[in-house]
């Protein structure tokens, strides 16, 4: 917790008297104007500027009686007591041996947490435990006491670092805003069970909502957060998140349950499981399981565009064994599709087994890599073929790499066969129950590296020129008898220019006979090695038409591919940008054009601009920012506008105010949610009472998703 904006602690606490060093072995030294020692009773009565000093404790009062034998100090008049961890002043104090004591009408200051307040009485049971009655507690400066906690009694335990209070009322600007019969709060920085920032907000789908998370620090290696979320239009949703860390694995389980949603009048729930780690040496597991009770769960209960646009939830379990130079993956995978046409829902891999070699490439020698995949495709949609696929693929290459260039001839041999059922009638479809396919691919990848030193704005840069040619030939193979299980065309990108197949997935091998020509140039700052600018341009020349296509697509007869251009630059630590362009020379048409700029002048300010055009798919601009208006005010926001639909996709504006003991963050949001294209509005408020735990909707996660680079841990 950062108290940078507060008055120095010394300015708001009573200053201790200047004293010579205390006597050793815990003796008590008393200073006073007048003192009387009653020798028989072993009683000393001191009056007038009385100061008692023992070790680091100092008591200052006007009238004190000290009983030597019982070691009891009784300060009748007003007193101030200084200790290492806190300061207390009041009207009457009685100090007993081993740190016990009672004090009346008390003002107290907790030094390490800047907490302070008043109490009608205080009892110290031992060095670490104190009980206060009719207490107030705040961490604000006296000059601006924005919030104050009142409680009938408070128990402060320095040992566990935990404070707990009963009949708690929290006042903000003297207005009671929160009551709880019991509240626990941290009095030092240890991870501690207690309330996390409760949140408040409103949106069209859920109405007024209020949620208050409670964090349970169950053990050093597992904890849980329980968040009841009250929604006026829906009811009460109980969210639980359980995190655990085992010896060499760990994970997280989230479960949300909304019994009897008032609007949808059904029970709704969400389950999210993540687990990964080592089962036994060299055997690893990775589990991702998301499930919701109904298709509209995210649309109605999610609170931003990112969540509500989710269409598929992955349910996957992997087991991977690593041998020496090979590994084998066993996978079960299916998806829960939300609101999608059953005909296009993905197949389920129940199971998929992949045995593959992962030998490092050895230069100037024959390298052999192999991969064998067996997968059983299942589907609940009964008009789709299901069954097993066996795919054997081996790659031979003879890389010849030197400092000035590389020549890499390689060949792929592949055999794929299927055992299928649930096929449409043969008269109507080309699909067969046992199709198989053998293909080979020949490739030659060559490139050269040219360097020179240039001087730009008197910075020494290494300017490189890297031409590259990539030839590929795969003969045509009839494949209409093979259904499509997990295959589609890659997005065209600079990386795609050098792939061995136009398709991802084993159901289609592209009959490519083509040559890729590409050029990359880099400007590298010699001092830092930072790549200030990289530009890559490339294009494929087709020597033959591509007759292997996905069902219902035409042959591809273009003689060349789009020209692909990619630019990425990191001018310096503050400014970076990138651009990607696909330009179709035949139709002189820009298929894809993406520009992005990020300016981060200092840790507090951040600006992102981006323009995205994907031909007949989307054309959008996306601007997000965060910058300080003053040392205490900060503005943040995002405007995502669709140029082709000429409407906003998501707009949100936020203001953050932070001062010594509290911070408030308000965000207003408007985002496109449903097919009808109407807008949803939301507002949420996060108030953090520093030292007492925050109070407001968890804005960070949302902001992190929406402002690239927004990171609360700046």
């Amino acid at each position: 917790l950062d108290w940078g904006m507060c008055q120095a602690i010394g300015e708001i606490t009573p200053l201790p008297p200047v004293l010579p060093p205390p006597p050793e072995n815990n003796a008590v030294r008393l200073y006073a104007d007048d003192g009387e020692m009653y020798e028989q009773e072993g009683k000393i009565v001191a009056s007038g500027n009385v100061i008692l000093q023992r070790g680091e404790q100092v008591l200052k009062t006007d009238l004190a009686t000290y009983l030597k034998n019982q070691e009891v100090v009784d300060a009748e008049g007003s007193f101030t007591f200084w200790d290492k961890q806190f300061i207390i002043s009041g009207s009457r104090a009685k100090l007993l041996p081993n740190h016990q004591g009672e004090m009346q009408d008390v003002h107290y200051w907790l030094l390490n947490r800047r907490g302070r307040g008043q109490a009608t009485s205080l009892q110290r049971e031992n060095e670490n435990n104190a009980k206060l009655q009719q207490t107030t507690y705040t961490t604000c400066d006296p000059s601006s006491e924005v919030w104050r906690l009142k409680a009938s009694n408070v128990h402060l335990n320095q040992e566990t670092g935990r404070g707990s209070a009963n009949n708690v009322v929290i006042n903000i600007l003297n207005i009671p805003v929160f009551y709880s019969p019991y509240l626990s709060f941290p009095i030092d920085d240890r991870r501690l069970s207690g309330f996390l920032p409760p949140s408040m907000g409103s949106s069209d789908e859920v109405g007024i909502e209020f949620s208050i998370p409670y964090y349970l620090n169950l053990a050093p290696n597992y904890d849980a957060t329980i968040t009841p979320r009250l929604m006026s239009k829906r009811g009460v949703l109980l969210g639980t998140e359980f995190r655990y860390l085992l010896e060499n694995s760990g994970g997280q389980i989230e479960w949300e349950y909304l019994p009897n949603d008032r609007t949808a009048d059904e029970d709704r729930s969400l389950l999210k499981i993540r687990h990964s780690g080592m089962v036994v040496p060299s055997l690893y597991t990775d589990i991702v399981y998301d499930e919701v009770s109904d298709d509209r769960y995210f649309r109605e209960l999610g609170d931003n565009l990112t969540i509500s646009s989710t269409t598929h939830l992955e349910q996957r379990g992997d087991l991977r064994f690593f041998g020496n130079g090979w590994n084998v993956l066993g996978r079960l995978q299916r998806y829960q599709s939300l609101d999608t046409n059953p005909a296009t829902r993905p197949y389920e891999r129940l199971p998929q087994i992949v045995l593959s070699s992962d030998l490092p490439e050895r230069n100037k020698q024959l390298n052999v890599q192999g991969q064998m995949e067996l997968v059983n495709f299942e589907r609940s949609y009964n008009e789709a073929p299901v069954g097993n696929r066996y795919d054997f693929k081996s790659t031979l290459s003879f890389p010849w790499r030197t400092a000035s260039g590389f020549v890499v001839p390689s060949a792929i041999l592949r055999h794929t066969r299927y055992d299928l059922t649930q096929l449409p009638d043969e008269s109507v479809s080309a699909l067969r129950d046992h199709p198989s396919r053998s293909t080979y691919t020949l490739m030659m990848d060559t490139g050269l590296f040219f360097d020179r030193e240039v001087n730009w704005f008197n910075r020494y840069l290494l300017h490189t020129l890297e031409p590259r040619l990539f030839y590929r030939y795969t003969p045509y193979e009839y494949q209409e008898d093979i259904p499509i299980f997990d295959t589609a065309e890659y997005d065209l990108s600079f990386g795609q220019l050098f792939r061995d197949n136009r398709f991802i997935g084993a159901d289609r091998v592209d009959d490519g006979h083509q040559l890729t020509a590409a050029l990359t140039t880099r400007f590298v700052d010699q001092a830092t090695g930072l790549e200030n600018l990289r530009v890559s341009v490339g294009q494929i020349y087709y020597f033959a038409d591509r007759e292997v296509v996905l069902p219902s697509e035409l042959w591809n007869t273009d003689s060349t591919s789009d020209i692909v251009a990619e630019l990425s630059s990191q001018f310096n630590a503050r400014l970076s940008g990138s651009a990607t362009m696909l330009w179709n020379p035949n139709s002189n048409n820009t298929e894809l054009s993406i520009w992005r700029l990020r300016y981060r002048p200092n840790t507090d300010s951040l600006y992102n601009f981006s323009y995205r055009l994907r031909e007949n798919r989307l054309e959008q601009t996306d601007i997000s920012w965060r910058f300080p208006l003053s040392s205490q005010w900060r503005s943040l926001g995002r405007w995502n506008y669709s140029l082709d639909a000429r409407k906003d996709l998501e707009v949100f504006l936020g203001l953050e105010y932070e001062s010594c003991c509290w911070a408030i963050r308000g965000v207003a949001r408007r985002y496109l949610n449903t097919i009808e294209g109407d807008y949803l509005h939301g507002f949420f408020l996060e108030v953090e009472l520093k030292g007492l735990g925050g109070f407001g909707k968890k804005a960070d996660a949302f902001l992190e998703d929406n402002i690239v680079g927004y990171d609360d841990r700046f």
Partner: protein
Amino acid sequence: TDKDQPINITAEQATIDDIKGIAIYEGNVVVTQGTIRIEADKVTLTYTKKQTLDKVILDGNPARFKQRPDNSTEDLNAKAEKMEYFATENRLQLTQNAEVWQGKDTFTGQRITYDTERGIIKANQKVQVTIQPRQQSPSKAPAN
């Protein structure tokens, strides 16, 4: 109690003036009465008309006083450059860097008066008392 014990005084030189009722002893003067023992450079005793002891003035560098109070286990010591003992009031008054101590507890102040009969020490102006903790008797840890 010490008050009823006989007083005896030793000194290098003594001048006694019965008429005025004054006796002055000088040079390593030692006065003892019961458990009381006083050492000083100069002791001046004055007597009332009825020959009873009125006041004793002690000067020393410093003058020292020691007494074992009734039902107490430790001697009470005092020193100061000037002490005055008012017999009728059983009051011993110490001035000029006066210090009183019993066992390891010490008591200092500009002016300290000691009521020898009721065992009360009073001090004023810049009082400083140092009290040693009682022997660390094993604190009665709650039997758990």
